[in-house]
């Protein structure tokens, strides 16, 4: 009964706001920005705690997807549309798939064994350190300014007649052209390095067991080799 009365009261009190379309649209935009932020924050924190608390690596990878999706939501909320799209494509589309491939190909989805504990106090110390670090960051952020310095040193974020992708492309292809070329080189080096690392090196026949030699050469040829030696 009382909540209903409060609701009626608040509607009446805000009637002048609802009657003015400009004001109500701004308030609605404000409220929706907060709602998007809250949903993204829930995704991010739920996924992050899921990653560090689940036992199964496959579940941890899926929780990581949740966190990355939440970060993409926050990017949208901050009007960086291109980065939100790239976040979904690169992370959820490529990185997580790579993680899942490695987990499933290697069959390492076994549980962690806590039988061997080289340093018993590690986990409590780690949690205490994490909490202390977090409190430090938050205290510093409350006592100091978050941002200081000149605005728009390397180009404004919002320019007239250009959207986010145009602005970002302009920045990457002009001011940051050299780093951009270096990332291309980095990607090539990473691909070549991975192929070299993951290549199954062929073993010479002398390193094989007798069964493997027989399988490689065939029984007749194997018998011939035995006779010769």
């Amino acid at each position, binding site marked *: 009964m009382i909540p209903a009365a409060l609701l009626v009261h608040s509607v009446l009190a805000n009637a002048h706001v609802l009657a003015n379309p400009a004001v109500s649209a701004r308030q609605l935009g404000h409220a929706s920005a907060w709602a998007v932020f809250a949903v993204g924050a829930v995704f991010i924190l739920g996924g992050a705690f899921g990653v560090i608390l689940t036992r199964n690596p496959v579940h941890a990878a899926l929780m990581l997807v949740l966190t990355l999706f939440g970060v993409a939501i926050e990017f949208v909320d901050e009007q960086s549309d291109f980065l939100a799209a790239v976040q979904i494509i690169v992370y959820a589309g490529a990185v997580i798939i790579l993680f899942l491939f490695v987990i499933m190909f290697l069959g390492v989805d076994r549980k962690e064994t806590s039988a061997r504990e080289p340093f018993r106090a590690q986990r409590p110390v780690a949690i205490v350190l994490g909490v202390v670090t977090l409190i430090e960051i938050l205290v510093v952020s409350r006592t100091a300014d978050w941002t200081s310095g000149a605005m728009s040193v390397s180009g404004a974020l919002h320019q007239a007649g250009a959207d986010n992708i145009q602005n970002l492309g302009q*920045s990457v292809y002009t001011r940051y052209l050299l780093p951009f070329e270096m990332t291309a080189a980095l990607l090539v080096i990473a691909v070549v390095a991975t192929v070299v690392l993951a290549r199954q090196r062929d073993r010479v026949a002398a390193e094989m067991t007798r069964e493997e030699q027989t399988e490689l050469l065939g029984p007749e040829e194997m018998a011939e080799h035995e006779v010769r030696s």
Partner: protein
Amino acid sequence: MGVPGAWYLTLAAVLFGVGAVGLLIRRNVLIMFMCVELMLNAANLSFVTFARMLNDIAGQSTVFFVLVVAAAEVVVGLGIIVSIFRRRAAATADDLHSLKG
């Protein structure tokens, strides 16, 4: 317009803390790797927030490069993990103590 930047930075700080704690308390190499990804994402989120607060495109350009480097890092890291697992069936970081002496 919208939520104050301080809220995003606080969220990024909490995400970084969770990732750091996870890196320290988990033993599975793959999950430790995922925690590094969490911390990278926290840094990305704060870069984008600073770009908005300072009205500067450089923050978003930096996030673009961080994404590329993170992808390369994941590729090389998983290659190393695959070659370690192929050599020995060790699922945890504590089993990799060949250099202990």
